[in-house]
C-alpha cells in the first residue's frame, strides 16, 4: 500500500446534519471523516466562506479527507487554474489526510454539469487523465486518490475494459485509487460484467480508501443515488474485498435522506465487524502458513 494512504479504519462522509456531533467531539465509531471539497472552497470573489470556519473546528476533533466532485480530471479542457489554486490553499489550511476526486469529467467549455460523466476507455482518455492527474499532484505536492464512478452509459468505441483502463491510468500517473464498491456493483449491473472480475483486476497496493454506499434499483438498471443503506450484495462484495485486499480505510457515503446518526453508525459498525473478521481470517491463514 502507498504509505501516504495508510489504513485509518472506519470513517464517514460528513454532512451538515451531523456537524454538531463532530463540533463537540468525535464518536468512538469513527476515526476520520470525508467532506466534499466544493462545500468549503471560496465562492467567486470571496476569500473564505463560513463552512471553512466550521470545518476547521471539526478538524480539531477528527482527521479530515477532502473529496472533490468538480476537478473534471477527464475533461479535454485544461484544468481550472482557479479551482486548483483554491484547492491547494484549502489543503494547506485543513491539512487533509488525503485528497481525492473522480475518474470522470463534469463539463466542458467552462460549463459544469455537476455530474460525474462517463469516459470512453480509450488511449486518448487515458492520456487526458494522466496529464490532468499529474498536474494536480504536482500542484498539490502529493498523490491523490481517484475514484471509479458508477455509469449508465458505455461507449461503442471503447478499446478496453474499465478495469484495464483504471490500471493504466493509475500506473502511468502514479496515483492511488479510491475504490467505490457500490459503484462497481452498480456499473456491473448496468453493463453486464462480473464485479469480481473487476475487483480482481484492481491493483491492490494502489487502493487507499473504500467507499460504501446505497443505490436505487429501477429493475432494468441501478442508479447510484447515495440515499439508501448499503445493500446486501454490496456488503458481500465488501467482505470479499476485505478478504482479498490489505486493510483499507473504509467509509459509508450517504448524500440524500440522511438518517439519524444512530442509524448511520449501525452501518459503520457493520463495516468494522467485517474488517475485523477478515483481519482475523488473514491472521489465521498467516499463522497456518508458518506452521
Amino acid at each position, binding site marked *: 500500500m502507498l504509505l501516504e494512504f495508510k489504513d485509518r479504519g472506519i470513517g464517514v462522509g460528513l454532512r451538515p446534519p451531523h456537524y454538531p456531533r463532530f463540533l463537540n467531539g468525535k464518536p468512538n465509531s469513527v476515526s476520520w471523516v470525508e467532506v466534499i471539497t466544493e462545500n468549503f472552497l471560496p*465562492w467567486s470573489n470571496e476569500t473564505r466562506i463560513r*463552512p471553512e470556519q466550521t470545518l476547521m473546528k471539526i478538524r480539531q476533533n477528527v482527521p479530515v479527507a477532502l473529496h472533490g466532485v468538480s476537478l473534471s480530471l477527464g475533461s*479535454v479542457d485544461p484544468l481550472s487554474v482557479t479551482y486548483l489554486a483554491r484547492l491547494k490553499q484549502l489543503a494547506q489550511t485543513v491539512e487533509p489526510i488525503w485528497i481525492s476526486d473522480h475518474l470522470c469529467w463534469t463539463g*466542458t467549455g467552462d460549463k459544469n454539469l455537476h455530474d460525474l460523466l462517463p469516459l470512453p476507455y480509450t488511449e486518448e482518455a487515458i492520456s487526458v487523465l494522466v496529464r490532468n492527474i499529474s498536474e494536480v499532484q504536482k500542484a498539490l505536492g502529493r498523490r491523490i486518490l481517484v475514484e471509479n464512478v458508477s455509469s*449508465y452509459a*458505455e461507449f461503442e468505441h471503447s478499446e478496453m475494459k474499465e478495469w484495464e483502463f483504471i490500471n493504466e491510468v493509475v500506473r502511468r500517473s502514479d496515483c492511488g485509487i479510491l475504490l467505490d464498491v457500490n459503484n462497481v456493483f452498480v456499473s456491473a449491473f*448496468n453493463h*453486464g460484467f462480473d464485479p469480481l472480475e473487476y475487483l480482481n483486476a484492481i491493483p491492490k497496493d494502489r487502493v487507499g480508501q473504500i467507499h460504501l454506499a446505497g443505490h436505487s434499483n429501477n429493475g432494468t438498471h441501478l442508479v447510484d443515488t447515495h440515499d439508501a443503506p448499503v445493500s446486501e450484495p454490496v456488503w458481500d462484495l465488501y467482505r470479499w474485498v476485505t478478504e482479498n485486499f490489505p486493510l483499507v480505510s473504509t467509509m459509508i457515503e450517504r448524500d440524500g435522506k440522511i438518517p439519524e446518526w444512530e442509524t448511520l453508525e449501525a452501518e459503520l459498525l457493520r463495516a468494522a465487524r467485517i474488517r475485523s473478521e477478515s483481519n482475523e481470517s488473514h491472521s489465521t491463514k498467516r499463522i497456518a502458513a508458518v506452521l
Partner: protein
Amino acid sequence: MKAIRLKELQRCFRDSITGNAVSDLGFDLIRSTPNFTRSERLGIYRHAYRARMIESLEDDFPVTRGFLGKEKFDGVALEYIAASPSTFASIAEFSRGFPLFLERVESLPRFLLDVARYEWLLVKTTNEVLPTENTVAVLASLSPDEQMESMVALDYSVTLFESPWGVDHLVEGSPYGPTPEAVQLMISPSSGGAAVERLKFHEWRIASLLRSGITLQRLSETLSTEDVDEKEIARIFASWTQKQIVRVLSKKHETEESP
C-alpha cells in the same frame, strides 16, 4: 463504430444532456442493450442534470417556489438552467443569478422578485465568514480624538436591503401574504446563519452612511444636521460595534502615515 475524438464526444454528450434534443451523434455513441436502451441510458443523465439543478434552486428559494407553485417554479428554473448554465465549482453558487433572471420573466408579481432577492441574500450571508476582528478592542485602544478620526464602515458581510413588501415576514411565513409594507433591513451573519434586523429610519440613515466608510467625526457631524440625537447615535454605534457589524477601516495614525 467510427472512432471519435474525446473533445467532440464530450461536446456531443454535453449537448445531449443539456439541450432540448439529443444529438444523433451523441446518441449513437452509446452502447445499447435490449433491457437498457441508449435512450434510457442517456435519459438518466438528462434527468439527473435537470433534477439536481432544480433541487439546488428549490433549496435556496423555498418561499419563491411556494408562491409560484412547483410547476411554474420548475418551468422558470429550467429556463434559467438553459439560459445560464453553471460555471461554478460549487452548485451552491448557481443560485446567485436566479433573482436577476426572474426580473426578465414576464408576468411575475413584483413582490416575488423582492422575495427571491431576499432569499438569495439570506443564503449568501449564511455562507459569509463570521467577523473575527474585535472592533470594540480596536477602538478602545485609541484616544478619543483618534477614535473620531478613524474610518469605520459596515463589515463587508453585512447587507442593507429595502423593499416595499415586508419580505422578511413573508419569508418567515406570514399568514397575511404579500401586503405593501415598506421595510429597511440589515442582514448580517450570525452563529445561527443570518440575522435580520428591521431598521428605523434614522438607523437606516446611519447604516447607509457607514456602508462605504466614514470617519466617526464626519458621521456625527452629518447626523447632527439631520437632528439625530447624539446619544442615540452613540447607542446604535456601540450596539453595532459590539455585534461586529461595524469594522475599523483605518485608524487616525494610519491615515496620517499614508503617502
